[in-house]
């Protein structure tokens, strides 16, 4: 047993740190730190800085333009990036569609789309979920009917994250309604400028706009936009979901949230005493820290297995559950540390001498509410438990 990182890994961490210090734009990091909504241009600016170093397509093999990182190196990067308040990579194009095209795409599709993912000429969003098909994704109803050399799409997708910025959407559509649910699904690439597509915003619990509904009315897309074989889209979708799993524990986010919480507990005074000296609050914080320390090692153990065996196994579902629960508990404590000062609506700019808290804590309640999503999306924690029960425990 040896829990230390290799000298090479430590050197890599130092390299990541100095890259972040040099290349992460301060104004963007400040927005992330204070929970402000990022613009499309903000995301693009940061991702371009990464791509310049070939550190953007981290899930792609080296030949295809990736950095060739090991799972441990990827983990180190994620940890450092979160601590430095780098924006999350918008993963739909680079981490989801990219690997899918590399595995299932035609040469023409690869040649056309991959460079545009790297250059960010295309912004992709994910059209899987529908109003009636969430956890039970295979029950999706959006129909695509072959008509000569085009598919005609009718139906509705929902929960489309950052669809308001996107110019392309990859969709799961039903091409054979007679077949068993999983057997009649295809994976289609759609240019959102195509006539018949309408994007409508969904406002979330804390008031932010990050998800959308996407409506399709007689939308014609070239049949060449099919990825993989017709009616075999489920295989493609499942492959993509394994990529959605990497970094699922969100260790970096929890580290950052814990550090921020400790700052808050040190800065917050009640009756002249620091909140961090309140035994009840300190105990709650210590408990989460203990959970997080253990989770980090569980995560490293899984990374180690993945490094040995190639792909991450169904055990990663553990990390989805534990990782989200810990992050949510940290958000909860931050809100509690603020007390009534967490109450103002986040869009109310209460500034100058009327400000209640330091800017980095002003969004604490909003973050708590918004992060209720992390145990719902990407396969809800209940669905993760079903996976663990069946595939790991053999029940």
């Amino acid at each position, binding site marked *: 047993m040896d829990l230390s990182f290799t000298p090479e890994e430590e050197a890599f961490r130092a390299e990541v740190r100095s890259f972040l210090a040099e290349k992460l734009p301060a104004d963007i990091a400040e927005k992330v730190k204070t929970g402000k909504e990022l613009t499309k241009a903000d995301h693009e600016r940061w991702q371009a800085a990464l791509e310049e170093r070939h550190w953007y397509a981290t899930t792609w093999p080296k030949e295809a333009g990736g950095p060739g990182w090991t799972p441990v190196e990827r983990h180190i990067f994620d940890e450092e990036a979160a601590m430095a308040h780098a924006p999350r990579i918008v993963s739909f194009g680079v981490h989801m569609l990219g690997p899918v095209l590399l595995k299932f795409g035609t040469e023409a599709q690869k040649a056309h789309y991959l460079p545009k993912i790297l250059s960010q000429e295309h912004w992709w969003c994910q059209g899987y979920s529908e109003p009636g098909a969430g956890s039970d994704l295979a029950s999706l109803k959006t129909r695509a009917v072959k008509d000569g050399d085009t598919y005609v799409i009718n139906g509705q997708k929902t929960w489309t994250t950052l669809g308001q910025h996107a110019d392309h959407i990859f969709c799961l559509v039903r091409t054979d309604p007679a077949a068993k649910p999983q057997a009649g699904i295809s994976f289609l690439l759609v240019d959102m400028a195509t006539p018949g597509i309408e994007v409508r915003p969904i406002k979330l619990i804390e008031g932010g706009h990050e998800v959308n509904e996407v409506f399709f009315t007689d939308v014609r897309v070239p049949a060449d936009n099919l990825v993989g074989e017709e009616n075999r889209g489920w295989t493609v979708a499942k492959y993509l979901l394994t990529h959605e799993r990497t970094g699922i524990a969100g260790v970096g986010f929890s580290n950052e949230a814990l550090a921020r919480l400790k700052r808050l507990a040190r800065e917050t005074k009640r009756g002249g005493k620091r909140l961090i000296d309140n035994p*009840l609050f300190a105990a709650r914080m210590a408990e989460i820290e203990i959970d997080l320390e253990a989770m980090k090692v569980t995560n490293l153990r899984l990374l180690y297995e993945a490094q040995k065996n190639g792909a991450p196994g169904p055990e990663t579902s553990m990390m989805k559950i534990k990782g989200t629960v810990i992050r949510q508990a940290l958000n909860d404590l931050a809100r509690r540390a603020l007390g*009534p000062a967490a109450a103002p609506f986040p869009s*109310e700019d209460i500034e100058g001498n009327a400000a209640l808290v330091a800017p980095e804590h002003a969004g604490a309640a909003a973050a708590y509410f918004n992060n209720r999503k992390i145990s719902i999306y990407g396969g809800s924690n209940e669905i993760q438990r079903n996976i663990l029960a069946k595939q790991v425990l053999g029940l």
Partner: protein
Amino acid sequence: MDFEIADDRRMLADTLSRWLAEEYPFALRTAAAYEAPFHRPDKWADLAELGALMALAPESRGGFGGTGFDVTTVFEEIGRALCPEPVLPQLMAVRLLMASGVDVVGDELAGALDGTVRYAVALGELGAPYALDDIETRYAAGTVSGRKSVVYGAPGADRILVAARGDDGRLALAEVDGAAAEIAAYGMIDGGPAGEVFLDAAPARLVLADAAGALQDALDWGALALCAEAVGAMDHAFKVLIDYLKSRNQFGRAIGDFQALQHRAVDLSIEIEQARSITILAASRMGTPAQSRTSSMAKNLIGRAAKMTAEETIQMHGGIAMTWEYPISHYAKRLIMLDAQLGDTDFHLERVMRLAGPGDLAA
């Protein structure tokens, strides 16, 4: 023993419930709670007319209620409808005015109960969100100075009752004209009006020179009201959840068919019943020596049950409960944020530990 709700209280509950459903239907409530002035001041007179304020004081002081159960009746309905009106500070003002003696404030109490005068109660400060002992705002020679933070209902209030330390170090209660205070107004994340109140030698009338007892009493009653508000909101959220579990289909059946969710819904229902029970207990002990400790017990348990209700109700709904358009998201916000009003779960836990239990009090 009798757990029946008295007829007159049931009538008040029905009247309020009907009126709230009419005046604060979901879309209208959301619009009102999130756009300045963050509530419907034009409805205040109607609310008073229905008896929602009169119920807060006994007949001897010009009301028609004044017991713990009268207060829980009103606030349960407020919670069920997510009504953003600042009734809570009005209740606390009524308690404070009653404590200050009939002669001095007979008329003022009447104004508070018939709704012609709207009150805010300014207790918490940035460095003293919950504990009276930590208050630093000063009262001296007819003026108050200091900053009061997140004062519910402060914008537009006719009068503000301010807890401030006098020259003798005692906690005093002073009244400031709403117009005499500088207020930075804002809406809250769970809807409704609040503000930062800046008092810079603001002219003030001394209501009580030694207000510690009266303030604690007002806080106890406020905590009870928040507990009842939470019970109303939890009841409603739970009802919506059960309907959804029965009607939402995934994998060819209602999601309520999955035992994983059934057991959690059952656990939640148990905690909501616990919350109702502790609120009933606290209501029954108002005005007794056990008032403070029991209201703190209730506020602690409510904080835990409300958090569980908010989080589990969202989780078991899935994505839909994350949206602004779906009422559950707003119930969840209210249920979470009321923990930060008048002392959170930990504050009240410490208080329960510190205050003597009923056995000790009897001895």
